[in-house]
């Protein structure tokens, strides 16, 4: 097994099919082949399973990458090359709205923008005490992402097979990927499955967007 493509997980105790699928795991069968067929596995103590790496199949092959057309010219160029366009409207997700207010320093007149009276920035905690700062524009929410058009299309190559897993490089839909220092993360890329008519995006909250732990 190539360590670059899969990390090993030792499972103790019984794992359900749901756990297995949710965590994107696979095992090596008696013949040394990678398999994600759950029914073939007798779950028990200390099963060695592998977590599939994002963007690769369980055999270590890179998944097909699906490009996104965000302009008419780009979409037309793709359809001329026999790609089909799977259109989506851009619908801002309420999970990705940010809060802001504008402060002014009473002594110096300095203007500052912050999401609260106490915020966390890269260099630490910042406080806007009411003795020193006026809130000159009250807090409100806004959607912080910008795109050239209110629609876009996934560009589907002609040879895509039904059931094929792919990587979407530039997601049209909004998917929440966690928060950091008051800022919400919009996932840029996820995997999806082509069902013959459309892409079904594989998004699991809590799993996607997490590749390390700190604490």
């Amino acid at each position, binding site marked *: 097994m190539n*360590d670059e493509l899969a990390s090993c997980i030792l499972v103790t105790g019984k794992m359900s099919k749901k756990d297995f699928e949710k965590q994107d795991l696979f095992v090596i069968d008696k013949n040394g082949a990678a398999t994600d067929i759950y029914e073939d596995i007798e779950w028990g103590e200390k099963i060695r399973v592998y977590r599939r790496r994002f963007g690769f199949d369980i055999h270590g092959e890179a998944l097909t990458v699906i490009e996104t057309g965000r302009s008419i010219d780009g979409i037309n160029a793709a359809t001329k090359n026999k790609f089909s366009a799977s259109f989506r409207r851009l619908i801002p997700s309420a999970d990705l709205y940010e809060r802001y207010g504008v402060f002014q320093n009473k002594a110096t007149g300095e203007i500052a923008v912050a999401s609260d009276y106490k915020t966390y920035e890269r260099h630490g905690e910042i406080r806007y005490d009411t003795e020193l700062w006026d809130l000159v524009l009250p807090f409100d929410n806004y959607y912080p992402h910008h795109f050239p058009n209110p629609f876009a299309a996934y560009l589907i190559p002609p040879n895509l097979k039904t059931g094929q897993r792919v990587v979407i490089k530039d997601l049209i839909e909004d998917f929440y990927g966690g928060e950091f220092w008051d800022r919400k993360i919009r996932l840029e890329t996820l995997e999806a499955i082509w069902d013959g008519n459309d892409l079904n995006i594989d998004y699991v909250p809590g799993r996607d967007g997490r590749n390390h732990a700190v604490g």
Partner: protein
Amino acid sequence: MKFDINKNILFTDKGVPIKKLHCPYDSSWDDMQEQSHSKNRFCALCEREILDTQNISEKQLILAVKKDDKTCLKIDFHQTNIELVAVYER
């Protein structure tokens, strides 16, 4: 070493707990300041250096946590010196 991805607990190879990773700010490694002298990074929220566990032995890590039990660690899910573990109840 083994890291339980469900409970965020780091264990020794023999299964003795070393530390439960918990960050009240849910901080991300990518946004921390790099250090010139090491692979560790500086977390400005807690004003602490976060220990990159990538190239560190179990013994060194235990010593660091024993010396200061508030030592913050970073574990990449793809690093080779720590095995990811998922413990499910029967």
